[in-house]
């Protein structure tokens, strides 16, 4: 299974068993063929063989769905296929682990509340701003991804500073701090629902108006687009990505920055944010606030190429080879821009990109957009006190 990208990894080929199931179960000719024993049944062995194609080689980035001339929504079908793969025991170990930890512990990386609280204290000490927890009636409920809790604590401090400058009330939630949803990635709606339900319950308990998804693409789509469908009713609150919130603040004049980054910078659009999420213009507005020399990659916005680690691939060790192979596209795009710093807005992308750059011995720092904005906030006297 350790090999590079091959002809096997073509989007439509990944769906071959699913296509056969559809044909055999839901079309007249397929049903007839099955009745007289002319069709080839889908076997467990075959599904096991397809594991690499359905999980390791697909990041659910949806570029295939975007370019298909016939209009086939291929990623939708891969997502459906994973439902069957997962419950028939053909999901990769790494992803099963992540889901299990999310369900049992509360976070795919095994982060528990005390770790979050430690992080909160740390930020409080550093910024001097109080980090609210379980504050009822706050306008915003801020969600985190474990990646941010563990690897990018700057995010929380950035939020604190921004909210303070904007003068908005916000809170974290002790029962729902983790936004990522490994249930979606592995493809088990029942489990994804359990994870989403925690957030819904938390948000409704605290009576917040808006839940803010962190800089994590899958977390955003899981909550923003899948959430209501998973629980079977519309949300009573709004869901926004942090970049949407920042752009709203900017438009309302609540986000004041000073100074500019001097290095040439480019922005990596996380698939789940643009193609799957619809957050396309916001990062550009924000980039222009603080970056003088902002260059777009080729194929920017909804056409962007995946970092290679989405759809649970970053949690799946089996997929490492393929992920590094896929990174070559990103590498080429990046080199063509000549940018010195890479900005993105997804913790998962960020980790994957950093690993890819390191593997290719490229010395380009990867920065979270929210944090970069926070660094340029106009320092107000109250913020210091």
């Amino acid at each position, binding site marked *: 299974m350790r090999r590079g990208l091959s002809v096997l990894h073509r989007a439509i080929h990944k769906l071959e068993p699913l296509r056969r199931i559809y044909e055999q*179960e*839901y*079309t*007249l000719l397929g*049903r007839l063929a099955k009745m007289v024993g002319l069709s080839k049944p889908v076997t467990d062995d075959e599904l096991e063989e397809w594991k690499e194609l359905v999980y390791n080689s697909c990041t659910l980035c949806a570029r295939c769905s975007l370019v298909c001339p016939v209009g086939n929504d291929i990623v939708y079908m891969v997502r459906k296929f994973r439902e069957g793969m*997962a*419950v*028939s*025991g053909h*999901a990769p170990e790494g992803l*099963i682990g992540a*889901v*299990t930890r999310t*369900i*049992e512990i509360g976070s795919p990386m095994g982060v528990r509340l005390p770790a979050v609280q430690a992080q909160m204290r740390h930020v409080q000490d550093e910024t001097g701003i109080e980090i609210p927890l379980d504050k009822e009636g706050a306008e915003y409920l801020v969600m985190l991804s474990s990646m941010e809790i563990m690897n990018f604590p700057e995010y929380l401090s950035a939020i604190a500073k921004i909210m303070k400058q904007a003068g908005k009330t916000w809170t974290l939630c002790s029962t729902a701090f983790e936004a990522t949803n490994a249930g979606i990635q*592995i493809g*088990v*709606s*029942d*489990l994804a629902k359990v994870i989403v339900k925690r957030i819904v319950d938390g948000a409704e308990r605290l009576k917040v108006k808006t839940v803010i998804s962190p800089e994590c693409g899958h977390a955003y789509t899981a909550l923003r687009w899948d959430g209501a469908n998973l629980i079977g009713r519309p949300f009573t609150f709004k869901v926004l990505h942090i970049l949407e919130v920042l752009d709203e603040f900017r438009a309302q004049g609540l986000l004041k920055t000073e100074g500019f980054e001097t290095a040439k910078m480019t922005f990596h659009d996380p698939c789940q944010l643009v193609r799957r999420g619809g957050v396309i213009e916001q990062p550009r507005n924000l980039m222009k606030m603080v970056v003088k020399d902002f260059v777009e990659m080729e194929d920017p916005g909804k056409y962007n190429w995946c970092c290679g680690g989405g759809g649970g691939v970053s949690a799946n060790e089996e997929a490492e080879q393929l992920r590094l192979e896929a990174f070559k596209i990103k590498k080429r795009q990046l080199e063509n821009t000549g940018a010195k710093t890479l900005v993105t807005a997804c913790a998962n992308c960020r980790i994957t990109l950093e690993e890819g750059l390191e593997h290719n011995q490229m010395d380009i720092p990867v920065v979270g957009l929210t944090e970069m904005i926070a660094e340029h906030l106009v320092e107000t006297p109250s913020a210091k006190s």
Partner: protein
Amino acid sequence: MNRRLTVAEQLAKQGVSRRAFLKFCAAAASLMALPPGMAPAIAEALGKRTRPSVIWLSFQECTGCTESLTRSHTATVESLIFDMISLDYHHTLMAASGEAAELARKQAMEQAGYLVLVDGSIPTKDGGIYSAIAGVTNLQMLKETLENAAAVVSIGTCAAYGGIPKADPNPTGAKSVQALMDEGLVPRKPVINVPGCPPIPTVITGVLAHYLTFGEIPELDNLGRPTMFFGDSIHDRCYRRPFYDQGKFAKTFDDEGARKGWCLFELGCKGPTTHNACATTKWNNGTSFPIESGHGCIGCSEPDFWDAGSFYSALSMPTTPLDLAAGAAVAGAAIGVGVALANRSKKGAAKSAHQSAGLADLEK
């Protein structure tokens, strides 16, 4: 019977000069669609050939073919050719009747090597009783007559391909001469088909002239027709062809396009699939042909032309009404709804049988 005269001798006896004979040969070459340079070869061949005996059998037919051939009363080059042959039996044209007529046929058949001309198709159903002459069925008469014949010329589409009597539903089981030979019902002899409803008179005589002149069967196409007259389609030789190529079509018989002489394809012209000499030889001594008169070709020199749909529906159109379509559409909808309901119940069953997936399900 005294020695038969050669054709040249026959003409000389009638007081035809060499100059006139030369003119005759030039006209004959034109008639046979041969290059004008062939006239001397024709003259030479006619100097050697004797007058053959000819028996003309008319079966299930309308006498249109005979009409076509004989409608010109004046002496033409064709009639000269008939002077050259000895037409011993033709029940429409011959003076004799009844037993005398049949006797003439029997006598002509005594000397082998005669030529048989047939117009009309031959009924085969119920023992062929649907057409009989002097109490002899057509089938029986053809069988007898072909026994010692040198060759047979099927004149008209009925004799050549079955024609209108064979048209659907063919109540008499009508068949062409060739079909009877293929089925072994009559003796097999060389067949020249001269189809048309009726055939062009000069084509009939041209084919006969060729046979008489050269004593051999001319080159035939795959439907047994002499290629010299049937080698090209009407469409290929049609003077309106340029309009077809330009996409200019008359839409009705009295529209602008019709007045301008545009292509009649859309008005049902069967020229593209019809092989005949109408476009070059023309009718009524070269006056015109149907397309020149503003009517499309009906394809009368082709097998089953009567069953090729309306004469006025274009070749690309169906020949029969699409009567299965409505039923098929209803059946499609019914089966579709059936499958839809089955799918829906399958989905419903799957949904109600669904047990919420837990972590335990992931490890199998």
